[in-house]
């Protein structure tokens, strides 16, 4: 026979417990049944509370502002000021570290990609890019490596392009929106990430001469509606 105390301890840990003894006690004790109902209602709120937007910063940097809600004028004014400050921080700082880390992390873990020197047939490069709706026009340089790689939980095209300034790794990050051009120089790699019509594109190399010019030529060669 389950006591009220045992019942409350049990449903306090598992409000939706499927248990014959719990059900029997519930039927005979209105107070405990009410207690369980309260916990179940609270769990529905907990569930909604836990389901945060997994990438609010990226969205905050790109999404249009929501319409004002139920809050007062002061709250709206305060949130606008805070929002502007947060947005500035987001646009300037936060994505930079994350994108750079993701890109460098990937390049470091695939060193063999840079070793290839033989040009890849255009058709082979096309096979990698086409599923993403992308195409590479002439002008970027010779592609010596092209494959699809997991990055950030997405599959992204990964190319190595031999340019006049040296070989560069190109990662097309359609899933990753950024607000403005970023540069990074970490772990011996220099990189540029450019906002693209669909997401962004990262161009990374080591001691590449005129990296910005190289990055721009690669960017110009990509057809984002290929």
């Amino acid at each position, binding site marked *: 026979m389950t006591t009220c*105390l045992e019942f*409350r*301890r*049990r449903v*306090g*840990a*598992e*409000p939706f417990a499927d248990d014959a003894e719990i059900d029997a006690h519930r039927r005979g004790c209105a107070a405990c049944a009410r207690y369980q109902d*309260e*916990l179940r209602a*609270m*769990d529905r*709120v*907990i*569930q*909604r*509370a*836990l*389901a*945060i*937007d*997994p*990438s*609010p*910063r990226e969205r*905050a940097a790109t999404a249009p502002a*929501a319409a004002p*809600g*139920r*809050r007062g004028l002061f709250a709206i004014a305060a949130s606008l000021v*805070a929002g502007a400050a*947060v947005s500035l921080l987001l646009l300037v700082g*936060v994505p930079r*570290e*994350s994108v750079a*880390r*993701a890109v460098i*992390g*990937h390049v470091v*873990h695939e060193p063999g990609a840079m070793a290839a020197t033989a040009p890849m047939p255009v058709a082979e490069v096309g096979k990698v890019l086409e599923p993403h709706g992308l195409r590479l026009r002439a002008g970027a340089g010779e592609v010596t490596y092209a*494959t*699809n*790689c*997991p990055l*950030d*939980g*997405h*599959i992204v095209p990964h190319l190595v392009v031999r340019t006049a300034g040296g070989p560069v790794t190109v990662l097309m990050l359609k899933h990753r929106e950024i607000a403005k051009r970023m540069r990074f120089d970490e772990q011996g790699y220099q990189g540029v990430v450019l906002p693209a019509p669909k997401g962004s594109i990262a161009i990374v190399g080591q001691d590449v001469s005129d990296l910005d010019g190289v990055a721009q030529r690669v960017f110009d060669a990509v057809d984002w509606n290929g």
Partner: protein
Amino acid sequence: MNRGDGETERRRRFGSLCESLRPDLLRFAWWLGRDQGLAEDVVQEAMLRAWKSFDSLTDESKARSWLLTIVRRELARVYEKKRPELADVDDLVAAESVALAAPEDERVEEMRNAIFRLEEEYREPLVLQVLLGYSTKEIADLMGMQQGAVLTRLFRARAKLRQRLGLGTEPEP
């Protein structure tokens, strides 16, 4: 299937798993670390590790638990290297205000803040149970604890939330 096709298929399967599980992994890492940048870095690193040992995952129906374990270990590894300075929880709340906001429902926002302020030992099993749908047995396995200890933590987690939200008090287990 030649070797190239096999590798392409392997990448596709891994990518597909990551694509579908990444939101949950990010949520889990965020609720544990309470820092968006940290959560993103931990999940990214965890995925790199997962990719390297993808062949050890023989049953893809267990991919979520497998990846959650890797995320959990990765977070522990980060804390081992550099234990974050003790921060005032109000500062953490302010720093994570974008994620904590729920303008559509005040109750959700209050609850989110209350959960955010729970001690990690109560927050983690609650996230695993309510958000990810794990049984207390599965939580015990993942956290390396006895099932009874998990039940106690879950009871206390809800008791603390009820208390903080002014919903009543519970009997001690």
